[in-house]
């Protein structure tokens, strides 16, 4: 690691889901890392829904785990109800989800961080990020360190900003506004100024959260209970089994009276009075928004999720709101089962600053300030998993930046994390970005079951995967190979078992019973499921692989960093403008920039190849 005169290598600002992964990754790569947080107990806190995973998100958690990150391990330990979503659909869209204990989760996360070598946790509020002009880096600035609220100063050549909703965070409940990043926690106001001072443009987004009620004030009798899976699936590849008992959730719903109450109080709703102007996510609408946009709907579902195994608090999922307190109280009382519910935390909307991600590159480093990395909500995403995925990448790249090495950039064909980062830096955001499986064109390949095959070797190469995980991975890989071979070799009624398994209804239970060899190989874990997936999806997987090969062709064509698009005379003006703004790294990314046509891409390829050596170079070998 580069020594220089700095005290540390990497400073991580923020102890949320992004910050935690960033600090963990950087420290594990040997960087002298400091995690700066307002309060130690707030590390890993869940601002909103006390759940990890879900559609698209569960896949991200698996990827983080495959790369040696924390989220999967912590979720397995802190989980209180596990469900595999989309179970009846194909494995490409299976998504693990878990309700977590909101007290245990942060505690477990903190335990990992506190026991991590190379990592120190420091309590303090960062006010300013220091940067200096560095002639060597061609007019860009370089990060030098941070200044804390009470005057302390830490120096480092890399800083990861993972401050969540804290940048000039402003919470709204009715007409009441309270500055803060979360209930009971201060906002980071000076930091926004500092980022602007570095030349970054900031935008503003909003999100919201529902009220929490006291468990003992809920009448569960009219509510529908929803239990977890009988055989809960762990997030982490390293967790053999979920052993803790699960807790149920309950389903409730609003009704026309509740909707009418909201309607007559819309004039007091910050979202509709103009008090809040920033854009919120469409997929997490407040209950007010639901009523306004879908007036004919007579009921909206609410999920009652306990915030912990022994917790007194129940989270009312589906009732996100910033209506005034009195309205919230009356609203909740109109829901069957909640007539006498006591609200222990009011719902609120929160506005916060973010850095439009076109200013950041695929390594999550800002283009204007070298060594400054941004991860999480600050890039315009929402969700713990999205934040954690970015945190991991930012942490790795901060450490590698300091060591003078190339960054880790995950492709759209490798991970949902890659899809997310590429979407952010190539297209920017207009509302908080959340992962959906429909965003991934290679969804067939980016499955929850094969995250280790896709990413653990990468993690190992980058130094993120320790020996125990690597050994586990190799064992699994070996078993899969041997199982695939056995399915080909063993026969039933004259045909290879493999062929039988191709039939849609066939799950293969009877073969496991009759063939010892199969039973041995398939013992425990999800080896059998994975082998089945490979067989049943084979044609589609092959097709996907061909598409990926085509994708790779252009993705692996780098664009010289010094390219001057405006000097290209024959190119269409729109393509020149868009590329100049985004500055794609490779031809593949250039193709994804909005407003670009196929011929523009073909011409770019010609131009780049023409710029290479003057003698006859062959781009592809003769057949």
């Amino acid at each position, binding site marked *: 690691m580069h020594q220089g005169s700095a005290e540390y290598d990497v400073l991580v600002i923020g102890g949320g889901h992004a910050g935690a992964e960033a600090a963990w990754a950087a420290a594990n790569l040997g960087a002298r890392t400091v995690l700066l947080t307002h309060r130690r107990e707030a590390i890993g806190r869940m601002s909103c829904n006390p759940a990890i995973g879900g559609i698209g998100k569960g896949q991200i958690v698996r990827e983080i785990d495959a790369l040696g990150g924390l989220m999967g391990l912590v979720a397995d330990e802190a989980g209180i109800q596990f469900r595999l979503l989309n179970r009846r659909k194909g494995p490409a869209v299976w998504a693990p989800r878990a309700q977590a204990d909101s007290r245990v989760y942060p505690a477990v996360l903190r335990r990992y961080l506190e026991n991590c070598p190379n990592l120190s946790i420091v309590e303090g509020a960062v006010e300013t990020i220091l940067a200096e002009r560095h002639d060597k880096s061609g007019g860009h600035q370089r990060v030098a360190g941070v200044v804390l609220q009470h005057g302390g100063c830490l120096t480092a050549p890399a800083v990861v900003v993972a401050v969540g909703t804290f940048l000039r965070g402003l919470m709204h409940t009715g007409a009441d506004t309270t500055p803060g990043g979360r209930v009971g926690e201060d906002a980071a106001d000076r930091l926004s100024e500092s980022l602007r001072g570095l030349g970054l443009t900031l935008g503003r987004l909003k999100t919201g959260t529902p009220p929490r009620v006291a468990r003992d004030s809920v009448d569960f009798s009219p509510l529908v209970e929803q239990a977890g899976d009988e055989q809960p699936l762990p997030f982490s590849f390293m967790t053999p089994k979920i052993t803790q008992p699960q807790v149920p959730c309950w389903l409730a719903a609003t009704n026309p009276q509740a909707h009418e109450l909201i309607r007559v109080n819309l004039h007091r709703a910050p979202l509709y009075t103009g008090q809040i102007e920033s854009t919120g996510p469409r997929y997490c609408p407040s209950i007010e928004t639901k009523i306004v946009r879908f007036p004919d709907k007579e009921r909206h579902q609410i999920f009652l999720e306990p915030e912990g195994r022994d917790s007194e608090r129940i989270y009312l999922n589906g009732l996100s709101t910033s209506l005034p307190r009195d309205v919230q109280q009356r609203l909740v009382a109109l829901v069957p089962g909640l007539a006498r519910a006591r609200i222990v935390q009011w719902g609120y909307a929160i506005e916060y600053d973010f850095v439009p991600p076109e200013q950041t590159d695929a390594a999550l480093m800002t283009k204007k300030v070298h060594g400054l990395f941004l991860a999480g909500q600050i890039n315009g995403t929402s969700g713990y998993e999205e934040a954690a995925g970015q945190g991991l990448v930012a942490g790795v790249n901060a450490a590698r930046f300091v060591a003078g090495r190339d960054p880790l950039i995950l492709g759209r064909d490798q991970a949902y994390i890659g899809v997310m980062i590429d979407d952010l830096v190539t297209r920017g955001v207009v509302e908080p970005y959340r992962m959906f499986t429909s965003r991934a064109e290679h969804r067939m390949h980016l499955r929850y079951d094969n995250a280790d095959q896709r990413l653990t070797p990468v993690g190992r190469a980058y130094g993120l995967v320790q020996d125990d995980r690597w050994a586990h991975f190799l064992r699994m890989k070996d078993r899969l190979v041997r199982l695939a071979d056995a399915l080909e070799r063993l026969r039933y009624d004259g045909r290879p078992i493999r062929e039988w398994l191709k039939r849609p209804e066939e799950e293969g239970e009877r073969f496991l019973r009759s063939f010892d060899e199969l039973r041995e190989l398939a013992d425990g874990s999800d080896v059998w499921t994975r082998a089945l997936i490979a067989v049943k999806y084979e044609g589609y997987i092959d097709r996907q692989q061909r598409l990926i090969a085509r994708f790779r062709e252009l993705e692996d064509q780098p664009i010289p960093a010094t390219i001057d698009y405006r000097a290209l005379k024959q190119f269409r003006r729109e393509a020149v403008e868009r590329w100049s703004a985004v500055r794609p790294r490779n031809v593949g990314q250039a193709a994804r920039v909005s407003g670009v046509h196929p*011929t523009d891409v073909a011409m770019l390829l010609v131009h780049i190849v023409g710029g290479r050596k003057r003698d006859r170079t062959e781009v592809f070998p003769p057949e």
Partner: protein
Amino acid sequence: MRVPGTTDTIVAVSSGWLPSPVGIIRLSGPDSFDLMPSLGLAPPDAPGEARPAWTAGRLALGSDQWLPVMAMWFRAPRSYTGQHVVELHTVGCLPLLREIAARLIEQGARRALPGEFTARAFLSGRLAASQVEGVLALMSSEQEAAVRQAARLARGSERRIAEDVVRGIVRLLALIEAGIDFVDEEDVRFISAPEVVREIDTLVAGIDAEQGGSAASKRPGRPHIALAGFPNAGKSTLFNCLVGYERALVSPVLGTTRDVLSAELEFGGLGAVLQDCAGVGDTADELELACHHAGERAAQEADLVLWVHAADTVWDEREVSACARMPFERRLLVWSKTDLTGGRPRAAAPLDFLDEVVVSAVSGTGVAALEELVAGRLEKMAALRGEALCAGELHAATAALKRARMIAAGSGDVLPSPELISLELRAAHELLTSETSRGLDEELLSRIFSEFCVGK
């Protein structure tokens, strides 16, 4: 959009403006030879063959139809592009050539982008590195021609059908994706299997109906020549003169707007469409607007603009700026009514044109020279490759839709394997859109959120 690769197999109809006696279909890429049996042609033997081979044969179109063809087989790396190249020389009948290309696209070839063969030649080192500018210029001018063609076809029925189908696919895809990404919404039902089957049947029927063919879909991709200029410049007279008083040929609609008169005619044996941008306002107030519109439309859609200026009038400022807006290499100046000025213009034009010609439609002078000039220009211009959509993409899209239907059908009410259905629908969508479709996921999400109350 089909992102251009360098290792897939591309196909194009290359033969300049038609009608002409010979038409050529050209393929380049690893599957070139392998695709030929689907047309009833077999690659020659002798894998070690160092020289290109000619084979004469028959190109099978249907059970009973065939075309005579000479096939040239260039085995990689000894070809223009360095890949396997096949050239099919056959009858120069555009609809038939398009049908052949369509078959190949259905089998997995991709329609070549403007200048793509030359691009591949360059990328494989067949052209010297110093020729990069020339290659880019070629691709650029072909791209522009294709854009113009697309703009014209945008008003044609062919384009509309494809757009309707694309919209239908996106609508259906949104419902299916919603069923994947919003499964938590217990009380929202998105779409059932029988509904998916019905929707797909409607889409396929829509494509089939179009294939039955309007005249427009069979219309060859002829170059468009626009006659533009101020009112009273003599456009209409010139138009009649060129077309030759056979009003029967004039049709008000050939994929263009109502207020433009169009006629199909030939210049030196090359077919073209002549458009008279007359019929715009004559009053002084509308003058600027009229010039602007005429100029803009002509510039956008015509491959060649004949700006008609009456020799006995002064050049108006607005006229000059309207001309200046047209690309230099596509504007020709026609001095009209020169019988009033003694057979020649009084002064030079205030700006440069690619070429100028002096006519007097009334006396007939100079019209032959004009025709020759235009014919010469047409020959020099790039062959039009960029038809907005051809039957091949429609066939291949239909095949993808049918595969989706097969997955959806026959399993009761619950939609099986939505992610596989989605894959096929996306493949169909990609085939039918010619621009970048990276915004597809945003479009899907927008639809889902506007129609359904989802998200917690």
